């Protein structure tokens, strides 16, 4: 693991490999030698396939194609919804981008409903677009309206940690009681458990994980002591 700061120069191998892919936080300059610089502070991650990116502990979501996000319906238009996904602009969700949706049979979402969706288009010059199905199979694939439950907000880094299957929190909670959870890459986590108490317990555990003043051990201890 290596930390980088904005402006740090990373030298790629001399003729840059064809497969070189620069993810968020990295930029190749068009000056002699084509140096790659970091423009965000964070942890540099690389894969053997020459993919590089920087993970940042930020709270502002910048949409990226194919990421799963949780959005709140902000407006209803005739044939599309405008959805708040925490980014600079509202995203557009076509009313037909749902499993089984036709011109006549559309999902009826209200302003304020939650949806779990995938970013289908993220372009810096256009509003992001979402879809609630897999465009090739037209199956829901887990996306769609999130009914009941509760939503908590946390940093983007916390979301990524929760999405890591090796992270301790969700499995250790699952040993205590059953629950459903949807983690959006945009710093939002939706959860639904059998009782109010359990839901509150999960949301507090996530809140503690998000709070930098509590260590992972304290969170683990909190989960162990939790009486639900």
């Amino acid at each position: 693991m290596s930390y980088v700061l904005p402006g740090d120069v990373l030298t790629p191998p001399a003729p840059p490999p064809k497969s070189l892919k620069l993810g968020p936080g990295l930029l190749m300059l068009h000056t002699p030698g084509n140096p790659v610089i970091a423009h965000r502070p964070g942890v540099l991650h690389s894969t053997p396939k020459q993919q590089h990116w920087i993970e940042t502990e930020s709270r502002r979501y910048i949409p990226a194609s194919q990421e799963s996000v949780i959005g709140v319906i902000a407006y209803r238009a005739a044939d599309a919804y405008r959805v708040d996904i925490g980014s600079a602009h509202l995203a557009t969700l076509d009313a037909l981008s749902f499993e089984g949706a036709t011109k006549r049979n559309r999902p009826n979402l209200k302003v304020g409903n939650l949806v779990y969706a995938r970013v289908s288009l993220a372009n810096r010059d256009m509003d992001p677009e979402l879809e609630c199905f897999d465009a090739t199979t037209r199956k829901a694939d887990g996306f769609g309206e999130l009914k009941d439950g509760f939503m908590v907000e946390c940093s983007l880094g916390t979301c990524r940690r929760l999405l890591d299957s090796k992270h301790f929190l969700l499995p250790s909670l699952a040993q205590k009681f059953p629950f459903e959870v949807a983690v959006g890459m945009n710093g939002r986590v939706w959860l639904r458990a059998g009782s109010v108490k359990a839901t509150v317990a999960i949301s507090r555990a996530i809140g503690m994980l998000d709070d930098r003043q509590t260590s992972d051990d304290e969170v683990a201890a909190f989960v162990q002591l939790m009486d639900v």
Partner: protein
Amino acid sequence: MPREAEPSINQRDFVFSAVQQGIRVDGRTPLQARQIAICFGNELGWVECSLGKTRVIAQVTATVTRPSPERPFEGILLITTEFSPMASSAYETGRPSEEEVTISRMLEKTIRRSEALDREALCILTGKKVWALRLTLHFLSDEGDLLDCASVAAITALRHFRKPDVEVVGDEVTIFSPEERAPVPLSLHHQPMCVSFAFLGPANVLVVDPTHLEEQLANGTMSISLNAQREICVLQKAGGVALPADEVMRAVNIAVFRVRELSDIVSRALEEDSKTRVIEVR
């Protein structure tokens, strides 16, 4: 001005159903307040107060000025509230929002109108020289219940502050630097502090110390300023949901206890601080 996005339906329904069962989203019971923490700066009269993740800084400074001609015996207290987008992106610089106006007016009424500060004691030379105190409140972070946090910070800062000692001989006024003579504390008539409530859900469950989410979802809010002597200084229920009179009285009685608790916390914090601080002249 863009409005802050409203909480989702899921959040609203959950908060309401949970509070119906006596549970709040952060694990508190309806009548439980968040932990309050008070810390002091190097200077006298600099206080940072936090209530959960809500944070407010209060600072008191004093200068000598000429009193207003209508009130030649009285010193001047000026309360300024500094809202900035730092506390929450809902606040804008420039034109104040409704919440900002309500909070700053409540503080004004709690501290100035209730005569918390003995302003006559700020007089140095009648009609010529008085102390002008400036109480500045900086709102650093808004996670709900800014008003209660700010009122605790303000009262603590006024109790913490000391003004330089003065001596008047005839028309001659000498102001002593802290090195020459120990500065003197302000004289306060009483110490009013605010307690805010929110009414949540279809049954209008009363909760103390609402979080930001609860404030957004509330059917109505109510703030009561009291002092430890069980005197109401301000009671403000500006519209919102209609309540039976007994519910208002219940809130008043809860507030009485809460203020006593807050006064103890403030006194204890000031006591702790005074142990670590040397004010006397060496």
